[in-house]
């Protein structure tokens, strides 16, 4: 027993230095290692560089930008100790609503024939509003009825998908205006993703909103006793998550230049995976936007890398699942280690 104690205290200088590193250091290393691995494999198997190809990198980030925007919101929900399963369906619903207000007058059978060629702010604002409303419903269910976030957002997930289909009786919405399509073209989604991440990184670290979010996740009862109006705060957090899903819906429909009820399928799980890979703990109180951004990039590198190696999409999913589980196991190991080290 004494032996064990001595062993634990011996490398304390190193341990202290490691502990002072930001928590993202580990996951950043994973990102770099994955990129390097693909680089090496690329030279061996397909005889080209993985990283020295700017276009590939842009496409890679572009592909995960939508997931990234959702993950920024989901991270905040996870920090409060909650979960949001509705993101993907809300993407579909907002994509439909926004697209229906973004149709050009050339559209043959517009959803609202009298509302075509509207200025681009209208569909964007509508999309954000619908997303925020869905988030507000999540928040009200959770704060008002006290049901677990898993159940509340599962309900909204199913209903929002249904609403998206009902909106046009299943028909896709196409022929969107050029200014609207521009939102999804080029590097715009990447810029929006990084800007969103920056805003909420600052919000979580430097505002009262952020402090309260962490406190609620760390110990909800203590947060209540400390004078935080927990229910009201959760309402805000879930509304923000919904708003960001709405933004993701706008981006998705703009990129596809159409709205379809099947959009955003499983996005919520990718977003949760990005947050968790980035170090957010589903038990609450832990998580950072920087980690989530890295987690999102890891998902992107894996997808892009496998495509680059011309590996079947089936294998991609299998490996992605493995990465999520390994990340969580490693996270729990780290947490336990920290607890016993004290």
């Amino acid at each position, binding site marked *: 027993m004494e032996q064990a104690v001595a062993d634990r205290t011996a490398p304390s200088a190193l341990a202290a230095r490691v502990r002072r590193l930001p928590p993202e250091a580990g996951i950043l290393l994973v990102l770099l290692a994955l990129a390097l691995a693909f680089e090496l494999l690329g030279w061996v198997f397909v005889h080209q560089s993985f990283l020295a190809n700017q276009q590939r990198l842009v496409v890679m980030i572009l592909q995960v930008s939508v997931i990234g925007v959702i993950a920024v919101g989901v991270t905040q929900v996870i920090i409060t100790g909650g979960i949001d399963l509705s993101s993907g369906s809300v993407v579909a619903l907002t994509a439909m609503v926004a697209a229906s207000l973004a149709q050009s007058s050339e559209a043959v059978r517009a959803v609202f024939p009298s509302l075509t060629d509207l200025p681009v702010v209208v569909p964007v604002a509508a999309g954000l509003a619908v997303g925020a409303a869905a988030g507000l419903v999540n928040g009200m269910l959770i704060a008002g009825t006290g049901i677990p976030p898993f159940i509340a957002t599962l309900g909204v997930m199913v209903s929002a998908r249904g609403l998206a289909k009902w909106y046009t009786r299943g028909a896709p919405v196409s022929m969107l205006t050029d200014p609207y399509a521009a939102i999804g073209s080029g590097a715009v989604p990447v810029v929006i993703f990084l800007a969103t991440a920056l805003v909420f990184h600052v919000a979580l670290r*430097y*505002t*009262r*909103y952020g*402090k*309260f979010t*962490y*406190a609620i996740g*760390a*110990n909800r*009862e*203590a*947060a*209540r*006793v*400390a*004078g*935080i*109006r927990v229910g009201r705060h959760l309402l805000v957090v879930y509304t923000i998550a919904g708003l960001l899903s709405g933004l993701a819906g706008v981006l998705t429909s703009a990129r596809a230049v159409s709205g379809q009820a099947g959009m955003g399928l499983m996005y919520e799980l990718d977003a949760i995976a990005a947050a968790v890979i980035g170090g957010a703990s589903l038990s609450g*109180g*832990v998580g950072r936007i920087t980690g989530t951004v890295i987690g999102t990039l890891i998902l992107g590198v894996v997808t892009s890398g496998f495509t680059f190696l011309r590996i079947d999409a089936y294998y991609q999913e299998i490996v992605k699942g493995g990465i999520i589980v390994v990340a969580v196991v490693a996270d729990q190991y780290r947490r336990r280690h920290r*607890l016993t080290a*004290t």
Partner: protein
Amino acid sequence: MGSAAATRVTPALLEVSGVSKSFPGVTALEEVTLLLKHGTVHALMGENGAGKSTLMKIIAGICTPDSGELRLEGRPLRLDSPRQALECGIAMIHQELNLLPTMSVAENIWIRREPLDALGLVRHRELNRRTRVLLERLAVDLDPEAELRTLPLAARQMVEIARALSYDARVLIMDEPTSALTEREAGRLFAVIRDLRARGVGIFYVTHRIEELFALADEISVLRDGRHIGTGTPRNLSRDDIIRMMVGRELALPTAAPAAPAGPVVLSAHGLSVAGEFDDVSFELQAGEILGVAGLVGSGRSKLAETLFGLVAPSGGEIRIQGSAARLDSPAAAISRGLGFVTEDRKETGCFLGLGVLENLEISVLSRDFVRCGVVRSGAARRACERMVSALKIKTRDLSERIENLSGGNQQKVLLGRWLLLKPRILILDEPTRGVDVGAKAEIHRLIMRLAAEGTAVLMISSELPEILAMSHRVMVMHAGRVTGILGREAATQVRIMDLAAR
């Protein structure tokens, strides 16, 4: 007491010798030596935090002692898990019952040991038959197939006892078994205990209720501050002897009496009630006054504090703050009226364990100060927290240290500091020095007295009578949800308070 070994003829059922156990920052048990004889009820008494529960957990295999030894009928006993203890015939009936609420009585009793048929399926008829036999032995009338959560607490307790017997337990540990029972249910339980005793079972019986000792116990041992103070029988110990043994301690308590308060009444309760918890509580609290609240666990004192702070809605009566009626529907509302509350359970309702000292200190004050347009003025907040850390002598490496790495006393100081940053007019403290080492305890005491001297009104709940007596201007005693007396400083003595608290 050291002569036990010399005079032994047949070995005692269970022998605890020289057992010590400490937790970070606190010594829970120090060299405790006790004997449990066959066919006896051995009561353990002591204040909260005296070490009774820790000792029982060691005997039941839940904790391992740092040093010392257990012997079962003379043979050394090493227990690494509760399951091992059960297999040696030592069973514990927990304060919080450890049963599976959605399973049947029979399933609860025989879990892991269900009779199986050749296919490995459970033989339910046999399971229920065995259960019936067992329950008959206890003279308890229960349906083996009843789902546990549908049963009243007393019946569930019987199921726990039946489960213990199903392991042929020879040592039974009961931790305050009557705390949630009605008088009639307790009477039935006593009959069962006496029957078990007659069969040679040895029973450790932890209780706060002195009456029960005289009704039930063959031997009584008192623990205080983790030490074994003495053992006697109901015949050679009087009620007053036991109280003296429990509370008579030398503590680094403030010796100077607190200055008499002269301020106006800032907080008052008028006929305040919460259904099922406490009833018709009225008192007044002056600025600069420390009102001690004494009472046993379950007397309603903590619920009263929670009600005053807006955590529990009163079912009747009125709270007045500075003369005007206050409707406190949330802690946030209470805080805005100038209240602060250090709860009794640091871990559950106080600390944000995963977060740093800074976050733990500043969280409440951020609702009011150090924020401009939602953005925290982190420099100013940090400086205020640093001042608080040095003023309260909180021992921490720096403000970013996680609070879970601090000792209990320092955690408690952080929680006090959280409220002091808000400068509350009324501070409610529930067990402010529980699980705090002696040095930090004295500092916390001085701090509370200084706050009162500066005009803060303090309502202090404590199970430690010396603390209550040394600090309070007046003492309010509660029993079973009612105020049984409010004593002035002169009239308040340990015996008088115990008398009102345990009547």
